[in-house]
Every structure is written in structure tokens, then in C-alpha cells.
């Protein structure tokens, strides 16, 4: 169990700067998820924390000890890799024991810990097998087991579920959450999948181009995204963005229609972007709608219906309607939404707060 503080962490590969001064504090026992599109530096950040990469500048403090120059082996962390990285020539038992043998632990203690982890992860019957004789899910468990036996200060998980099929991923996700609850360990989890982030995290760190966009609990990010990127990244289906401009105080104009947004403080005439989640809108007749739409695609999911539409200006707009409505492509519908469900962003994508 450890806490971690990153202070202006910068990582450069040659002339390319991957991480631009990351500041982050992770509390003991917290489950933190780094999420972002590919190439955002989330894996690099994890490797920097692990000690597999050296920081170019900045500070990493583990339990308030500066560990910039401490090697990966001596930081006392454990990592689960995307490809699992099980040693193919060793049995499951040897895979689990390898790290403990290297720290010269007495054999009895190694056996005890391996047995304990195997029991926890239900891999006891597999201990004598080689990794190639295991299924994807079993390999995943062994990889997690290899981290557990080390009793690390922090678990680092690098997209651990991305090699599993969709069904198994849901199962393993639940198991990981249960594991975190029972171990009460600090975990840092990297993923590009916002659903994993939302379901697992105590706090989510959204990264983009080597910068932290926002840090917060899943619902904070969902309800109060700090910028357009976070708003678009968190939540599924994606948030809709409609361009407009600020009208007289407390209102915006979209495609010629004026929409009241009480408390909006923006210069009249400034171009803004409205963000509305598909779940926050209701369908109405096109005439009295805030935004009229032409339906381009209908996805029937059973419990709900996802409508993909186009505004008059050609912006795409998604609506999630409950139940199994009858819609046809080309049909004209309208949507309305309550002002409190609207997020307003300025020209640079920053949120404009409303009082």
C-alpha cells in the first residue's frame, strides 16, 4: 500500500516530448484509471511510474520518498502487461515464484504466497502448466497473480483486458473490482476504453497529447466535464456537439433558433459549442423542437433505441430514446432538452460555467 505523487513529470524521447509536466497525487488504496486515446502518453506515464522509463525532469515520490533514480526492481511495484508477458518457458508456479525468488525470499514463504494467490484467482489446478496451455482468461489471471504474490505498494495495470473477448472482459472487469476491494491496494489502470474507466475507477485521469485534461470521479467527469475533449470522451454514446453563438444574456442561438440558458455568461456574438448527451434529450415533433433532425440510422437495442440524425447544418446528432420506437430513415424528428443538461464550451473547447 503506497501513495504516489507526481510533480511536473516530463518525459522526452529525443526531441519528442511525450509527457508535458504531469501533476498528480494518488492516495493510498485508490483505484485510479488513466484513460485517453492512443498516443496520449498514458502507457508512457505508467512506465515512468513503474521505473521502466526514466523521467526527463520532474519528481516522482512514492510514500513521499523521491524515487526518480530508483530502479524498477527496487520501487516495490508490480505490473500487469497488456500481452501478460508470462515467461513462456516456465510453468505457472515458476512464473508466480520468479519475482519472489529474485528477492531471495525463503522457499516456505514463496510456496505460501503462491498457494494463496492461486486460491484467490482460482488457478490452483493450472500451477504445473505452461502459459501456452492456458486460455486467454487464465493467462490474465496468472499475470494478475504474478503481481499479487509480490504484495506490491501499487499495482500497475497496462490495458490488461484488451486481449480478451468482450464477454470475458466484462467478467474480468468485475473480478478486478472485487480484487481491489479485497486487497485494498493502490491500483493504477491504463485503458483507452471509457466504459472500463467508468466502471472501475475511484478517480479517472483523462489524458490527451501528454497532458492531463481532467481528474475526477467518474460521475464528476460525466456531469461536469472541464472541456470538450473530456465531455466527448466520457460517456457512451458520445456527447453531441452543436455549434451556435451566444445571444443576449442567458440565451444562445442555434441555427436561427434562440434557446434560453439561464446563467450563461458569454459575450454576445461569441461562437460557442453546446454539448448535450444522447440520454439527456427527449424526442418531440420537429416544429416545437430545439433542434430538428433528419434520421440517418436507427439502432434498435431492445431496451432503448439509438437514433443517429443530422441537423440542418449537417452536424451529426445522436439520441437515445427509451423503449422500442418505430423510426424510419429519412424521417424528420425534433429534440428538446432541459437547460441544466446542456454543457457550453467556448471556441477553445473550455467549459463556460453557468451560475
Amino acid at each position, binding site marked *: 500500500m503506497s501513495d504516489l505523487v507526481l510533480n511536473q513529470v516530463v518525459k522526452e524521447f529525443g526531441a519528442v516530448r511525450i509527457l508535458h509536466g504531469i501533476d498528480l497525487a494518488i492516495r493510498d488504496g485508490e483505484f485510479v484509471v488513466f484513460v485517453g486515446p492512443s498516443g496520449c502518453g498514458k502507457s508512457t506515464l505508467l512506465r515512468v511510474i513503474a521505473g521502466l522509463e526514466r523521467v526527463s525532469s520532474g519528481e516522482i515520490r512514492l510514500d513521499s520518498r523521491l524515487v526518480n533514480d530508483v530502479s524498477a*526492481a527496487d520501487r516495490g511495484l508490480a*505490473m500487469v502487461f497488456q500481452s501478460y508477458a508470462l515467461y513462456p518457458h516456465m510453468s505457472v508456479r515458476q512464473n508466480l515464484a520468479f519475482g519472489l525468488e529474485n528477492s531471495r525470499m525463503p522457499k516456505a514463504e514463496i510456496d505460501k504466497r503462491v498457494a494463496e494467490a492461486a486460491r484467490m484467482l482460482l488457478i490452483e489446478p493450472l500451477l504445473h502448466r505452461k502459459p501456452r496451455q492456458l486460455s486467454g482468461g487464465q493467462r490474465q489471471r496468472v499475470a494478475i497473480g504474478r503481481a499479487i504474490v*509480490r504484495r506490491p505498494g501499487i499495482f500497475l495495470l497496462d490495458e490488461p483486458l484488451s486481449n480478451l473477448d468482450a464477454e470475458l472482459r466484462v467478467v474480468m472487469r468485475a473480478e478486478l473490482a472485487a480484487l481491489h476491494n479485497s486487497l485494498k491496494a493502490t491500483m493504477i489502470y491504463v485503458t483507452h476504453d471509457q466504459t472500463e474507466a467508468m466502471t472501475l475507477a475511484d478517480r479517472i485521469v483523462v489524458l490527451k497529447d501528454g497532458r492531463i485534461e481532467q481528474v475526477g470521479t467518474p460521475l464528476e467527469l460525466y456531469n461536469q466535464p472541464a472541456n470538450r475533449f473530456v465531455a466527448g470522451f466520457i460517456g457512451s454514446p458520445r456527447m453531441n456537439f452543436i455549434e451556435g453563438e451566444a445571444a443576449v444574456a442567458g440565451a444562445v442561438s442555434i441555427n436561427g433558433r434562440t434557446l434560453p440558458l439561464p446563467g450563461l455568461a458569454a459575450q454576445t456574438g461569441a461562437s460557442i459549442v453546446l454539448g448535450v448527451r444522447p440520454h439527456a434529450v427527449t424526442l418531440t415533433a420537429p416544429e416545437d423542437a430545439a433542434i430538428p433532425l433528419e434520421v440517418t440510422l436507427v439502432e434498435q437495442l431492445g431496451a432503448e433505441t439509438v437514433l443517429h440524425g443530422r441537423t440542418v447544418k449537417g452536424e451529426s446528432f445522436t439520441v437515445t430514446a427509451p423503449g422500442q420506437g418505430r423510426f424510419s430513415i429519412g424521417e424528420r424528428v425534433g429534440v428538446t432538452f432541459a437547460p441544466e443538461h446542456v454543457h457550453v464550451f467556448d471556441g477553445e473547447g473550455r467549459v463556460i460555467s453557468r451560475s
Partner: protein
Amino acid sequence: MNALTTFLLRRRGGQSWHWTDMLAYLWLAIGLVLMFGPVLWLTVSSFKTPATLAEFPPTLLPLDTQVATVPGYDKPLPLYRVTMEDGSQRVLAQVRRVGIMAQMVDPQSPQAIVRVPIDKRVPVREISLATSNYSEPLRQFDFLRYFQNSVFVTVMATLITLVVNSMAAFALSKYEFKGRAAVLGIILATLMVPLSVIVVPLYLVVNQLNLFDTLWGVILPTVATPTGVFLLRQYMLTIPDELIDAARMDKASEWQIYWRIVLPLAAPALAVLAIFSVMWRWNDFLWPLIVLSRKEQYTLQVGLNAFSGELNVQWHYVLSMTVLSILPVALIFLFLQRYITAGIANTGLK
């Protein structure tokens, strides 16, 4: 037997012989003769007497002319099958040959000399294995000593080759450092320098190190091979870096990563290099010939050279000892070849 015939007569798909089957078997047969023929001929010939070896045209099998001891003659006389004037066939022993006529006797009644034209007689020959080709040199020629030396050189050189080359390959494949490509380039460039070019400086170095006329003088200059470094490096590039990162997280030292992760995973490539190294070192001739001067230090290949005198070559001994000298390499190859297939099957990481 049944399994063997089904194996040997396998055809693609259906029951009948497709022309591609025939082509495939023809191709395989040609390959077999080309590869295995010389070895077979060498083995068979190693059982021939010097006389049979010198014969022209050569025979495939080790045939030997039969002789009989005939009363009244000191030496055993060679036997011939003779077609008589009346067309009957008799087996006679030849006393001497005069021009185109041979004087022969019947071993049963040695008094009467029969004169036979030489084109009417054919030697009586039977397969006989001249095992003395093997037993004689094993007794006189210090085969065991040379064999021991060869084994020592081969085993030590191969072990050191594997360790040294795999270390270099590990560094060149898994560490990022300035000049890595240049170092690899220089190592590979040495492939273009043949032994004969560096033999004099190499000799001087070995001499200065007091390794002249020792087996270590044969071993050490040969252990670092560019081929081996390149082969192992290319293989190690396929070992995922995540495994090495995982080992680092598992508190493994760099040495442990090399010894416990990379080396076992490179086993198929190591087996290939081991086979190469064993064959190179076992068959090495020029360098041991230069370094070794005392007979006790000779390796097998240098020792075999003793059978080739300035004026005549004792082919029967050369052949028999060559057979003995290729046996260990063949056995090692058989053994390691199985290991290679198993090894490659093992390396599927995912």
C-alpha cells in the same frame, strides 16, 4: 513395417498417384542420393582393401579377390573363374601371368599347369569387410588421444561460443545505446575477412599469450563468430521487450534476465549455433595445423593428415578414420535437430 510403408508411400489427397506426387518423390530421391550418397560411399569404401581402392573402374561394394593356398606354392594364389575351350567353367588358381596368357592350376590337383588366355578368366570375388582398416590405426595411430583432443576442443569452443555470442547478441538486441548499429556493422564486417588473411597476426597473438601448441590456442581465437552473434541477435529481436520489462519488475538483475529469461527462450537459435559450432570446430583443419606442433596435441583432423605422406596416401586408413570422425558430428546433429523442432514449437508466446 506397415506404418513405414504408409509413411513412405503417402500421396496427396486421393488414392491414385498424381504427377506431382511422382515429381515430389523423384525430387526427394535425387536429394537423398545427392546428400547421402557420398556418405554411404565413404562408409562402404572404408571397408575396402588398398588394392580394391586403387582399382579402376571402382566398385561400389568392398569386393575382395578370393585366394587359395595350393600345395607346392608358398603364397596364397588368387582364384579365377575360367571358361574352358569346351565351354565348361572351372575355378582355378593363378600361378603367374605371362603376356596375354595365364598359368593356372587346379587347387585340387596342383600338378597340372593349365594355360588360359587372360580374357577367358574372371576373378572370384566376394564381399569382405577389411576391418583391419579400423583395427590397425586404432592400435598404431593414436586415435583415442586425437579423438579426446578433438572432443575437448569442440566442446569447450562450442560452450564458450554459445555464452560469448549470446551475451553480445543480448546486448545488441535488447539494449539501446549509441553506436549499436555501428558495433553490429563492424562485427558483421569481419565476416568478409578470411582466416588466411589474419592467420599471421593471429599466430603472433597466440604465441605472445603463450598459447602456442596448446588446445586453448586452438579454442580461444575461434569462439567469437560474427555469424553466431548475428543469428542469435536476429532471434532475440523476436523475444518481446515486455518479457524483459516484466522480469525487471520482478526484481531480476540484468544477468538474471539474460540467464533465466533470454537464454532459455533463445534455445532454438542456440541449438542451431551449437550445431554449426560443433561442425566448424570438429572439422577445423588449418588453424589447429598451425597452432599445434606436438603430436600429443593433435586434433583428429590434423592427425588424419598424417596418413597423407609426401609420396603416397594411405587411403584405406584415411577413409576409415574419416568415418569415425564424422560419427560424433552426425550423432550430435541427430540429437539437436529434434531439439530445434521442439524448441520452435515452444516459442509461441501467445
